């Protein structure tokens, strides 16, 4: 691994200060490290690593999961293991628990953070689709203060986000309006353990139990475009439509038009398109099953419950 300078930030503010201090010099490549499960693997065999590394793994205030006026706020340093074990998330969003569980292995889930997974911005990231389908918002901390943007605008392209060199991803927020929204995540990889997604997908929708129709259906796809995307055509197709297996299957076929997969050594574009159709359908089926159980439990299977 290439030599670099190391600074361990005491907390988020300290980290932002360190970033401001070093990012000032454009020649200096500054990197923020949290769990390090992606970054260190990248740097190990690469001749061009960073010059300065700022470790934020000690910023305790970024490790909390809380309900606020704005919604469910997940700190950027919350690990995938924490997500899997959070009673709050288990009860509201089993899909997030499932998505976290599909990431790497126990060792990586113990170190890897939700923020890190998003900031790395690999199109096949497993945290992206579920959060996108839940219209998550992210809070970005910088020397100038904090700003919030929808997650859908956070990603720019493969391994590219809107983060400026002196900025930090602080928290991920699932808006109040979507709390408890029935959601399902599905990942398809080349094996069961430690798999990278060939395609992953998430779907969420409310149910108008009176008309038995889809309300506010949201579908998100990973690994089929330069960044995690929303399948807007499929969403439009479902809006207000009666909930039937046929509709879900058709939505899958429509979603294929939203995807722009490439062919690589893992799979061909055509195969990925097929997976988009199948996974979208299965996500809708999963979310539908969840909606029905939630209704039976009398918990919120629909917005007004």
């Amino acid at each position, binding site marked *: 691994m290439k030599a670099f300078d*190391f600074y*361990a930030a005491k907390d988020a503010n300290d980290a932002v200060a360190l970033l401001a201090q070093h990012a000032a010099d454009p020649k200096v490549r500054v990197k923020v490290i949290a769990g390090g499960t992606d970054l*260190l*693997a990248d740097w190990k065999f690469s001749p061009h690593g960073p010059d300065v*590394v700022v470790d934020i793994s000690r910023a305790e205030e970024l490790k909390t999961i809380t309900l606020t006026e704005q919604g469910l706020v997940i700190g950027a340093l919350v690990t995938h293991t924490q997500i899997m074990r959070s009673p709050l998330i288990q009860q509201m969003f089993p899909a997030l628990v499932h998505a976290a569980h599909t990431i*790497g*292995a126990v060792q990586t889930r113990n170190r890897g953070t939700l923020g890190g997974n998003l900031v790395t911005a690999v199109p096949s990231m497993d945290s992206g689709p579920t959060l996108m389908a839940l219209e998550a918002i992210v809070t970005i901390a910088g020397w100038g203060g904090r700003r919030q943007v929808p997650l859908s605008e956070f990603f720019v392209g493969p391994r590219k986000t809107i983060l400026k060199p002196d900025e930090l991803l602080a928290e991920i927020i699932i808006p109040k309006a979507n709390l408890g929204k029935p959601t399902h995540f599905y990942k398809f990889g080349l094996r*069961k353990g430690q798999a990278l997604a060939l395609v992953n997908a998430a779907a969420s929708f409310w149910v108008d139990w009176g008309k038995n129709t889809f309300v506010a259906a949201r579908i998100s796809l990973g690994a089929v475009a330069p960044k995690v995307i929303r399948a807007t055509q499929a969403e439009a197709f479902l809006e207000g439509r009666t909930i039937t297996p046929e509709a879900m299957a058709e939505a899958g076929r429509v979603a294929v038009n939203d995807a722009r997969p490439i062919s690589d050594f893992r799979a061909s574009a055509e195969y990925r398109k097929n997976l988009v159709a199948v996974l979208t359908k299965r996500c809708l089926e999963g979310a539908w099953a969840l909606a029905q159980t939630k209704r039976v439990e009398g918990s919120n299977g629909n917005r007004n419950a």
Partner: protein
Amino acid sequence: MVTVTLKVNGKTRSATVPPETTLLRMLRDQFDLTGAKLGCDVGDCGACTVIVDGQPVNSCLMLAGQADGRDVLTIEGLADAEHLHPLQKLFEHFGSLQCGFCGPGVIMSAKALLDENSNPSTQEIRDALGGNLCRCTGYAKMIEAVKGAGCMMRGEEIPEVKSA
């Protein structure tokens, strides 16, 4: 250089290393604890698994500086002068290891599992070992041994070894 002070197997240790040194390198090269192995150096194989603050991690994907002030348990810290850890005892008894290179990592992953759940299902064991690649054993006899160690820790009979 960064100076790192941490607890290793219950004892406070300190070392000054280049910033890019991983926890794995520090354990092996500075503290001569060579139980954790370097198999891939990028977190795929799990041969470097150690337990940090109670959780199994790939020590090749953690900077020494990030381990400052933490509590690290390595395979060398499992047994005492009188007793093997139940896992070590049953991995030996069941022939769970062959070339042995993945062993320390596998046993640390299994220990972390049993500390939380001494009665795991086969699927839970497979999930706990999912980050530890083994090319010799097909994992079968490891899973048996983890089950058996759970029984020992619960003070129950160890199930009969299934034989051909």
